């Protein structure tokens, strides 16, 4: 009897809980967000910047996506989006998606498997309609083709098994595009199936989105509209947030020193201080003197006192790591005990002594100092670490001069190899080795700026990619990462931490801890009145 009553009570409570919860989420309202500058275009597939992904992700859907309520992206947090279900075949090379039916593009045309095929054909350069730029070509090194088996089924055919393909498809960078809309239109007036429709972009002024009333997901989105105000001056936009002009800041726009200031002035603001999976690193021109000399290259990489960088740049908040974002927020980075054994990550004094010896072996010394140029972008987050580097290199007989490149010309300069050492920032779209290794370290990848290329490492990259046992894969990834540091492929300085702040009325927002590109669908966000 008692048990029965209890159960009944629980049932009643449960029955109440559901409507209660539904009641708690208030629909309506316009969310106001500030943006740091006019995005280069509205076409996510053509850009590699959060300036585009953060506002425009809400226009689209993917096949699958990262659960927007889970902060750490991993293969385990992938949920259905336009695909309701998916399965690998026996050979582990064919991934078949069952697609949602009845979904409509914002212009009213139906969404079908053809659109899926079209999108990836375009990414592989197989379609007549060509994008101006294709920054993530390297993601699909292993994709043979995509087929539309029926209106509601599409299959990805891979050259070799690649369990992490799902991780790539779940990124904010992997939306499904409509077949019938030209790339130009996608840049200026993007059409998607997502929870919000694009209304207008005014350069330097605003980007506006409204609720998609026909959204296929029941009851979503909650917001009526999202208004982005573009504010170029950082001081102005932070002050505006403090003055409660905005509900949400741009992603990771609040630096660690600023965070203290924001918290003091707006004590109610909810700030998420997270690793953004953006690393500060060096690109070393190994084709020209003096860094064609392996000794000099290695000496520079191990001489860096990374903890000093971290302390200065972020009050000790940035993270020490290799190519992969370190744990706990990163899923694949070397743990501290493994990292400590990686070349250059030991005791700073010992490392400097070692580096000095290497420099002497290369013919340099206190009386024969090496003059080099450190090039970087003319933006504070690039320049500041470069200034510290300049100072630290003095200890190993290198007199470095800073060459500041106007921001617009940075990649052009890098592409021309018109530098000796470059201080660079690398943003990682998905916290997965398949992205990091193939984008930045693989032979022939466009974003492998220094042209580091080792066939042996390529084999290892492919091997880890094909592994099903993720724990075994992780061990191999650590080994690869450590070797990349030893090879001075792209010496890492730190992994950045930044904060995204929201007013307390913003509900249902989860800020991702291992990527700033995957958590902006905005369909679950509501504003407390």
């Amino acid at each position: 009897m008692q048990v029965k009553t209890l159960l009944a009570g629980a049932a009643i409570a449960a029955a109440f809980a559901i409507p209660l919860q539904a009641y708690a989420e208030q629909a309506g309202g316009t969310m106001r967000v500030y943006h740091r500058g006019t995005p280069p275009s509205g076409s996510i597939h053509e850009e590699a910047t959060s300036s585009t992904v953060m506002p425009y992700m809400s226009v689209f859907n993917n096949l699958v996506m990262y659960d927007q309520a889970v902060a750490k992206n991993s293969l385990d947090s992938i949920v259905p989006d336009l695909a309701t279900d998916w399965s690998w075949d026996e050979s582990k090379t064919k991934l078949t998606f069952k697609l949602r039916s009845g979904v409509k593009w914002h212009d009213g045309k139906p969404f079908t498997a053809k659109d899926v095929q079209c999108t990836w054909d375009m990414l592989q350069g197989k379609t007549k309609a060509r994008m101006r730029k294709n920054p993530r070509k390297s993601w699909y090194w292993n994709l043979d083709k995509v087929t539309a088996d029926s209106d509601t089924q599409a299959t990805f055919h891979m050259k070799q098994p690649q369990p992490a393909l799902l991780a790539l498809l779940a990124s904010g960078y992997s939306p499904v595009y409509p077949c019938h809309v030209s790339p130009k239109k996608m840049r200026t007036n993007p059409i998607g199936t997502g929870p919000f429709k694009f209304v207008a972009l005014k350069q330097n002024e605003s980007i506006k989105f409204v609720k998609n009333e026909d959204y296929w997901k029941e009851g979503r989105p909650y917001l009526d509209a999202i208004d982005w105000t573009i504010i170029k001056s950082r001081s102005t936009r932070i002050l505006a947030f403090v003055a409660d002009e905005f509900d949400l800041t741009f992603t990771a726009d609040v630096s660690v020193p600023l965070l203290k200031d924001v918290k003091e002035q707006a004590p109610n603001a909810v700030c998420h201080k997270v690793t953004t999976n953006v690393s500060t690193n060096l690109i070393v021109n190994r084709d020209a003197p003096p860094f064609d000399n392996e000794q000099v290259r290695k000496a520079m990489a191990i001489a860096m006192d990374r903890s000093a960088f971290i302390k200065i740049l972020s009050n000790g908040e940035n993270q020490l790591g290799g190519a992969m974002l370190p744990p706990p927020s990163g899923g694949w980075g070397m743990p501290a005990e493994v990292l400590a054994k990686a070349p250059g990550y030991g005791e700073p004094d010992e490392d400097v002594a070692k580096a000095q010896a290497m420099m002497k072996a290369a013919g340099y010394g206190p009386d024969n100092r090496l003059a080099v140029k450190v090039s970087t972008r003319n933006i504070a987050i690039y320049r500041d670490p470069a200034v510290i580097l300049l100072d630290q290199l003095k200890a190993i007989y290198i007199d470095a001069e800073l060459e500041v490149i106007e921001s617009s010309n940075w990649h052009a300069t890098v592409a021309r190899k018109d530098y000796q050492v470059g201080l660079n920032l690398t943003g990682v779209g998905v916290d997965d080795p398949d992205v990091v290794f193939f984008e930045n370290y693989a032979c022939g990848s466009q974003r492998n700026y220094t042209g580091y290329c080792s066939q042996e490492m390529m084999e290892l990259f492919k091997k880890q990619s094909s592994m099903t046992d993720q724990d075994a894969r992780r061990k191999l990834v650590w080994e690869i990462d450590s070797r990349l540091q030893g090879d001075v492929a792209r010496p890492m300085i730190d992994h950045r931490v930044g904060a995204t702040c929201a007013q307390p009325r913003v509900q249902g927002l989860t800020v991702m801890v291992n990527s700033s590109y995957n958590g902006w669908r905005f369909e679950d966000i509501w504003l407390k009145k």
Partner: protein
Amino acid sequence: MAIKPIDHAAELSKAGAGVESRLGKAWFLAKSYPLGAVGLILFLGLLFTGIFADVLAPMDPVKTNAETSLQGPGGQHMLGADMMGRDLLSRIIHGARISLAVGLGSTILGCSLGVIVGLASGYLLGWFDLITQRIIDIMQALPLLVMALVMAASLGPSLENTVIAISIPLVPHVARVIRSNTLSLREMPFVEAAKAIGMSETRIAVKHVLPNTLAPLIVLATAQLGSAILTEASLSFLGLGIPEPHASWGRMLSESAAEYVRTAPWLVIFPGIAISLAVFGANLLGDAVRDILDPRQRS
């Protein structure tokens, strides 16, 4: 408009009328132009600090130190330290040198170019004059900061290029003033006399016309000093200007103003004071110089 050539030595002595000793003259001037005297002192202070920055600065202005990042004033760092743990006082002292380089450098460069163009234009006349006048019209029609921006963007960020970028917009102003002076001077009896005794045109231009245009030139140049320093600050704020690790006041101010106004106000206050004092001094000096050298404006 015809402008009478000004004998600046005579004007100077008139200003200090009847006073014999040099010191006495200086004292007389200072009493007549107290604001100018303040300006001169400020300017000399800037000059002194800039020249002897290496000796005056207690520390290496580019030495970073993780331990003293954002340390407040007092103790080891009299005015505190910036984010990179660099000594603020030393950076401000070295910044005086940068500001001098920008102020004096761009003024001298702009004036020299302007004088050459103006002198040639006013002396040669004809086609050369017509074309340069149109170019000057064009340059004057473009806002100064826009010109400086385009120049800074095309030259790339560095100290030298910033100086050039700031100096270019000055050229048309100087050229115009020098030209109109030259125009009226070339009709003067002493120029005619020089011609009569067979002096070459170039020699006349350099020996007789140029010295007589000095007064308006000095007036223009002193007025330019302060605005050059401010233009650099604006360029820095807009992301151009003099790059790190140079200790430019403009950059120090524009960057710390964004990040540290509350958490480390000393990073905003001290460079702000430095820049305002320097510009203020230059402006006061410029005003006084104009009053002294330009009799039409003298009270």
